[in-house]
């Protein structure tokens, strides 16, 4: 049972620590109900007042903020919160938050990596197996009643023992590597920094990694440096039989170029959970059997959402008790 459900709360709202809920009006999270008994929640999206005026009037003393999913959090908004010390990001990615502003202000940030890492890794592995073994293609084949007619579905490709290159060896990337080792895959990675304690081989740049890999798995965050990190050169280096899996952000890949490579058969296949302009997906991909399309749901399991709620609650409690936080995101 989640720890927040066990906690009794006898304090009146006035005594409860104030937490700002930062969300788009359409984002209705169960977090509000979960946290309400324990914190004095301010929810500008629920107020008829415009957000900036609400914050100016009510949020000057707010020390902690929860950012729901990928609600954009700009420097402009942060400027209205002079007392802010902590941002609890209820998401794995934080590219929707002005990190530079947070760094300048010394604001601590936690994200949901620890709650989401296993699910995101499972999803990446699922996409890789599906692309190589044509599982979705085979499923379509059977459901369309083609098996008795055509008899043979086209052959897939061996997934195990492939050379896997992981782009971004954070928590998610590490979990991906750990799983794929059991399939006989050799694991290499590129990351901002080499991780000496990790049993995988390091490549200084993504191009070298692509040269040495049969499959690239993108697990890194989206920053200025990683925008379109997968470009024409990298795809060429990956090669005609190479497979690319993306569970990071759509903009890690130059999508137009990827589509061209797939249409020309210059790359072996792709498993994509994210796209540059969600929910728009390039229509040309719909006809391809060597592509698996996933509607940005790598972390959407009931278990991970429960873990997220637990993590948010625990971190807020810890913050207001001056205890250590979990899943702290290092802003660099």
């Amino acid at each position, binding site marked *: 049972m989640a720890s927040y459900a066990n906690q009794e709360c006898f304090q009146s709202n006035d005594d409860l620590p104030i937490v700002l809920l930062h969300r788009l009006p359409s984002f209705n999270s169960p977090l509000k109900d979960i946290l309400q008994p324990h914190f004095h929640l301010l929810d500008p999206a629920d107020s008829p007042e415009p957000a900036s005026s609400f914050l100016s009037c009510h949020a000057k003393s707010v020390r902690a903020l929860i950012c729901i999913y990928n609600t954009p959090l700009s420097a402009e908004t942060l400027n209205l919160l002079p007392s802010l010390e902590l941002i609890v990001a209820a998401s794995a990615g934080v590219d929707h938050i002005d990190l530079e502003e947070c760094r300048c202000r010394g604001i601590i940030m936690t994200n949901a990596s620890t709650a989401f890492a296993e699910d995101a890794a499972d999803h990446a592995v699922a996409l890789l197996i599906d692309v190589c073994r044509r*599982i979705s293609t085979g499923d379509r084949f059977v459901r369309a009643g083609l098996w008795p007619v055509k008899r043979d579905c086209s052959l897939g490709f061996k997934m195990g023992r492939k050379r896997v290159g992981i782009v971004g060896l954070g928590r998610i990337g590490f979990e991906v590597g750990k799983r794929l080792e059991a399939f006989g895959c050799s694991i290499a990675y590129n990351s901002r920094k080499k991780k000496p304690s990790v049993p995988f081989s390091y490549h200084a740049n993504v191009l070298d990694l692509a040269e040495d890999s049969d499959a690239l798995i993108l697990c890194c965050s989206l920053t200025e440096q990683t925008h379109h990190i997968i470009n024409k050169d990298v795809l060429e280096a990956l090669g005609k039989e190479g497979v690319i899996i993306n569970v990071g952000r759509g903009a890690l890949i130059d999508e137009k170029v990827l589509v061209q490579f797939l249409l020309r058969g210059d790359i072996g296949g792709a498993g994509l959970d994210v796209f540059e302009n969600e929910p728009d997906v390039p229509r040309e991909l719909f006809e391809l059997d060597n592509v698996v399309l996933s509607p940005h749901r790598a972390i959407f399991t009931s278990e991970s*959402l429960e873990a997220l709620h637990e993590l948010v609650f625990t971190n807020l409690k810890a913050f207001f008790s001056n205890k250590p936080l979990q899943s702290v995101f290092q802003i660099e």
Partner: protein
Amino acid sequence: METNHHTTQQTEKEKNPNLEKISGIKMKSIGVLMTCPMHKYLEQQLETHFNLFKLWHCNSSITEFLKTHQGNTIRAVVGNTEIGADAELIASLPSLEIVASYSVGLDKIDLRKCEEKGIRVANTPDVLTDDVADLAIGLILGVLRGICASDAYVRIGKWKDADFGLATKFSGKSVGIVGLGRIGTAIAKRAEAFGCSISYFSRSQKPFANYKFYSNIIDLATSCQILIVACALTEETRHIINREVIDALGPKGILINIGRGAHVDETELVSALLEGRLGGAGLDVYENEPDVPEELLGLGNVVLQPHVGSDTVETSDAMADLVISNLKAHFSKKSLLTPVI
């Protein structure tokens, strides 16, 4: 002694410099019957090395076909999971010496008849173990994480209207394996990397296996959330997954079958899925392939594959090479690489 042996070998080679070529020509006259289309590369190799007869070119009965095509010159049969070598076929091939199966499963071969008649049997173990295990994990993830269903969702344009919905986590779940042979063990190794707890049911406990053993399949099904069929099909294992087992697995449980369709009482499986008594299923095999129960075709909590467990380019070629190697070994009076009998 060694020197003499070496000298003897050299003398033989000197006598017959075209030894390999001659045995190649001899083999070309050996009749091999392929039971159905399986793999183009295998067909080509059989045509290159032997005198290949294709059973599916038969318009009349098998007996007529064999009369016309000199059935008594056929010394080998290459079968697969679809058509193997049953008693009737064996009886109609008086010169049959070896059945080389393009499969690891032997349920389509009358092994008793082969043993009686001194016919050798070979199969294709090991080369396909990894691929079948990879597919088993792919099926689990496909069902729990809705990979195929959400791919279809995107392709028909539904993502623009609404998000797909929550899936179920795989990592950390309890996995039960029916049959801890080569394939079962490979599946266990992979599932362990996802933090799953592994238990199994087998004819006997495996001393080397560090997993929890259940001597009763109902107990296994009760204890796990994901049940995987990975055993051989025999008289004892036919319909081993019956209503009782399915009910023990329960509404949150999922069944994965990469064994044989006949392992599962398909009628019971279908009704359990339709009634919500079973959470989901990932199936690569069915009782009457290529027919798949129509009721399954519309379900979102199943993943359906057309018996592709070992159908990768790499493994299909490796299996074909093994079939050819076994045949060549037999006809060169050498030991079979992967003998069954």
